[in-house]
């Protein structure tokens, strides 16, 4: 099969942004979504989801730490990436990345985790030995004050940080939507809806991810799953999905109705090269089916087992669907010619700097980091007491 179909400008034949650039918004989307779920409890007092609070924060951190890696692999000169901090070009949405990322990492996520875990950190600094002890002691910043007053202050400050964190999370992921949405050269990308669609799909993916992780980790720990928690999380997932789907349908209907110059070219692309990833994977399997499944649980009563199965299936389909959405935006936007006269093909390598293998490895890496974080900063009380018991028994 030939590489191009019709006419492409000669420099357009090769795609510029690869699967790694698909992965980046997927990862930051999970960060933003997980954080919003955490804020549901902290700020909006949805107490039912409290069991997922700490896990959501650690998940956000694990994914945030990996998020810049696909970008670094993609850059022609990654050693120059610090230039974004030195001379950020204020008219460029991408220039915001360095500062928004650093702000979100340090002033929101790390700060909130530190404040919530500080009591545990101080206690762990006293009960562990060796390298771990050093790690915890550094984290305490030399202060062992866990008096009720100090903890009350931490709680208050933590609340404020979460409140600031919500718009910060929107900014962290919304600016990515703006990076695409503001490119007037590309009609597949250029729409004011883009940041909003990205944001809501981020929330959907983040909530689904934390829900799945919660269920999985509790299964691995042989602990009971708090169904009231999971039911509530699934409910919010359903609501977010409705909004996300409505926005995407609005964009689609608007395009079909206005049928501007780019429409025929894009329409053909969606029905040919993008058919499987857009119609089948993103829309049918990744959006309509999970919404239907989740909707069923809202209107009919099912047993716990059935609900768990529905949540797991809906959650997995959601994650696949949101990844497909990122794929369709990034790759789809480069498959058609800006002359509207032709199409090209994405040749994704496997063992290549920007190939599928690095993408898979970078997707798996946050789970390893999360595993380490869960071990170092246990999200659940009983984990902590058994850990401490092991520590005192084995360590002295």
């Amino acid at each position, binding site marked *: 099969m030939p590489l191009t179909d019709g006419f492409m400008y000669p420099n357009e034949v090769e795609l510029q942004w690869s699967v790694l650039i698909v992965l980046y918004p997927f990862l930051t989307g999970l960060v933003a979504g997980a954080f919003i779920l955490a804020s549901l409890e902290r700020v909006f007092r949805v107490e039912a989801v409290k069991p997922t609070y700490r896990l959501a924060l650690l998940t956000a951190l694990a994914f945030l730490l990996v998020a810049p890696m696909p970008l670094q692999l993609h850059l022609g000169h990654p050693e120059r990436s*610090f230039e974004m*901090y*030195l*001379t950020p*070009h*204020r008219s460029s949405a991408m220039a915001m990345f360095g500062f928004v990322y650093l702000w979100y990492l*340090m*002033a929101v996520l790390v*700060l909130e985790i*530190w404040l919530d875990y*500080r009591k545990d950190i101080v206690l762990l600094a006293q009960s562990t030995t060796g390298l771990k002890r050093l790690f915890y002691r550094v984290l*305490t*910043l*030399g*202060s062992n*004050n866990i*008096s009720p*007053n*100090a903890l009350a*202050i931490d709680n208050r*400050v933590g609340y404020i940080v979460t409140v600031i964190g919500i718009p910060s999370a929107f900014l962290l992921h919304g600016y990515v939507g703006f990076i695409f949405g503001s490119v007037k050269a590309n009609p597949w990308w250029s729409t004011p809806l883009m940041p909003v669609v990205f944001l809501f799909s981020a929330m959907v993916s983040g909530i689904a991810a934390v829900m799945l992780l919660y269920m999985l980790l509790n299964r691995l720990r042989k602990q009971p799953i708090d169904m009231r928690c999971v039911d509530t999380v699934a409910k919010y997932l359903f609501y977010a999905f409705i909004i996300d789907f409505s926005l995407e349908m609005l964009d689609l209907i608007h395009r079909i109705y206005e049928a501007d110059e780019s429409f025929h070219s894009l329409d053909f692309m969606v029905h040919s090269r993008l058919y499987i990833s857009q119609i089948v994977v993103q829309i049918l399997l990744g959006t309509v089916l999970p919404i239907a499944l989740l909707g069923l649980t809202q209107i009919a009563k099912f047993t716990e087992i059935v609900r768990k199965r529905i949540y797991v299936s809906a959650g997995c389909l959601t994650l696949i669907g949101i990844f497909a959405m990122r794929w369709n935006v990034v790759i789809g936007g480069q498959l058609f010619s800006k002359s509207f006269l032709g199409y090209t093909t994405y040749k994704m390598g496997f063992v290549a700097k920007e190939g599928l293998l690095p993408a898979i490895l970078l997707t798996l890496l946050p789970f390893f980091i999360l595993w380490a974080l869960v071990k170092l900063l246990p999200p659940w009380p009983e984990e902590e007491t058994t850990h401490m018991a092991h520590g005192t028994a084995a360590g002295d």
Partner: protein
Amino acid sequence: MKFKDATHLFRLAGVFAAGLLLFVALRSFLVPKSFGQYGHFRGDALADIKAQPVHYAGHEACESCHSDVLDQKVKGKHVRVNCEACHGPLATHAEDPGGITPEKLDTAKLCVRCHEANTAKPKWFPQVVSADHSAGLACNECHQPHNPVIVAEEKTASAGEGPKPAPANKGAKK
């Protein structure tokens, strides 16, 4: 709120402040000095780009030495075809005329680049189907590239004008 219960927050603020100061210090060291001189870019970049080596000398450089060729050209249709369009980039030859000799051109391959008939070319442009036109002969067997008109044609076209120089080389082997 007692301040002693918030010392950990002050220490954290201290860590952040130290980080910020370090960033500001590093920045003043690392931002290129000429940045911002003319706009949001490294001013020295203009000089870097200007320093790129030139490969085509430009027809004025050629004409300063080869005025005889210029005299031929101005009388013919190729007056506006610049030297290096056929002879290739020759800035090195212009710098060192004795040392660097331009290569001999093969008109059989060169001329058809422009003059091979193509339905997409404008109708006013002289074009031939080379296989039918020259029966395998090189173009400069009949045409002098610097003034490509063939004398016989020209006499019919412009009777009354003075004698023109004969095609410079080889003569017509028809």
